[in-house]
C-alpha cells in the first residue's frame, strides 16, 4: 500500500492519495499487523524447533527476532498516524494544510526508518537462525547458508543509505532464501528422527 500511495518528497500528492484511498491505507496497516503477528508466532516456533541445535543461540535468536517485531510494530503507529493528521479534526486547525501534509509525510518516513531498524534485528536473527540450521542435522545445510547470506544482506541497514541502495538485491536474495526455507518446511518439514536424535544428544550434554 505504502509503495503506491506514498510519493517520495511530495507531501501534497501523498496526502491526496491517502485521503482518496483511505480504506486501502487502513488495509495496509492491518496487513503490517498480521505480518508481525505471524512473525512472532514463527519466531517462537523456530526457537523450539532449533533448540536441539543450540539452546542458547536459539534463545538469543528468538530475542533478536522479537526485538525486531516490537520495533516494527511500534513503527506501524507512525504508518497510521497520517490518517489522524489528515483527518480534519477541529483541534488540528492550528496547523495549515501544508504543515499537516508535511507532517503526514514525515510520519511515513519515520515508519520507514523504524522498519529499517527492525531489519537490522531481523538480519541478526536470520544470521543466527542460519547458523543453527547449519549446525542442525534435520534441515539441509544449504538453507542455513541462504539464511546466513540473507541475514548479512539485511545487516547492510546498519548503515541505512547503503541498505536502501542495495535494497532490491538484498530483498531478492532474502526472498529466495525465505522461499526455499518455506518450501522445504511445507513439503518435507524436518527429519523427525534426526531431530529427536539431536534433541536427545543435546539433552545428554546438559
Amino acid at each position, binding site marked *: 500500500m505504502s*509503495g503506491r500511495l506514498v510519493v517520495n518528497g511530495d507531501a501534497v500528492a501523498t496526502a491526496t492519495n491517502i485521503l482518496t484511498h483511505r480504506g486501502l491505507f487502513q488495509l495496509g496497516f492491518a496487513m503490517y499487523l498480521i505480518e508481525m503477528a*505471524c512473525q512472532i508466532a514463527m519466531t517462537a516456533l523456530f526457537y523450539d524447533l532449533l*533448540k536441539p541445535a543450540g539452546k542458547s543461540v536459539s534463545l538469543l535468536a528468538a530475542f533478536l527476532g522479537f526485538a525486531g517485531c516490537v520495533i516494527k510494530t511500534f513503527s506501524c503507529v507512525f504508518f497510521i498516524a497520517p490518517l489522524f493528521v489528515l483527518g480534519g479534526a477541529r483541534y488540528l486547525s492550528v496547523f495549515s494544510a501544508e504543515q499537516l501534509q508535511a507532517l503526514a509525510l514525515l510520519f511515513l518516513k519515520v515508519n520507514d526508518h523504524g522498519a529499517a531498524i527492525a531489519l537490522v534485528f531481523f538480519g541478526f536473527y536470520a544470521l543466527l537462525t542460519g547458523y543453527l540450521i547449519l549446525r542442525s542435522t534435520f534441515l539441509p545445510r544449504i538453507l542455513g547458508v541462504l539464511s546466513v547470506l540473507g541475514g548479512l544482506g539485511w545487516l547492510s541497514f546498519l548503515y541505512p543509505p547503503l541498505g536502501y541502495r542495495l535494497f532490491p538485491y538484498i530483498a531478492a536474495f532474502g526472498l529466495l532464501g525465505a522461499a526455499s526455507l518455506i518450501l522445504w518446511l511445507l513439503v518435507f518439514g524436518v527429519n523427525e528422527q534426526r*531431530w529427536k536424535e539431536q534433541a536427545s544428544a*543435546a539433552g545428554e550434554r546438559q
Partner: protein
Amino acid sequence: MDEELRSPHGCSAGDGGYACNCNRIDVTRIRVSESRFRVRRSSGSSCRQLMKPWLHRDPGSFLIRRRLTTQGLAARGAGRHALSEMTCLRQLVTRALAPTFHPTQKKWSFRAPILVASESLSSTNHLALIIGGTSMSTGVMTQRIETSPRLKGRIIGAFYLLTILTGIFAQVS
C-alpha cells in the same frame, strides 16, 4: 526369582519390555506382534484383565497409552526425547520389576501393568510395560501433536509464508 518376576508381565528384557512407576501419560503408536504379550499362566488376574484388550487385537499398529516418568518429562522439557526416556524407563524397570510376591496369598503386591509401547522409545518397536492404567484425554493428544517436530516445521513454514505474503502485500501492492 527372575522367572517369577518376569512371568506376571509376560515380558522380559529379551522381549524388549519395560515397566515403570510413573504419573503422566503420553499417547503413542505401537506395533504389536502376536508373540509378545502372551500372558503366561502364572500371571496375576488383574494383570491378565488389563492386558486382555491388547491380547485380543490382531497384530498391527495401535494408538496406546504410555505413562511418562517424572524423569522422562524432565528429559522432554530439556529437549531430550526417545533415548533419554528409554533410559529413564530402563532405570525404573529395576525398581518396578521388583514387586513383593506373597507366597501365602500367591499374589504380587504391585499394580497390574497395561501393555504399552512407543515408537519414540525405539524405532524397532520395543515395547514398554507400564504399571497402572490411565485414560486418554484431549490434553494428551494435544501434547503428542505439540511434540511432533515435523508438524511444527510445517506450521513454521505456513507462518513464514503468511509473513512474507502480508509483508509484500502491505509494501508493494
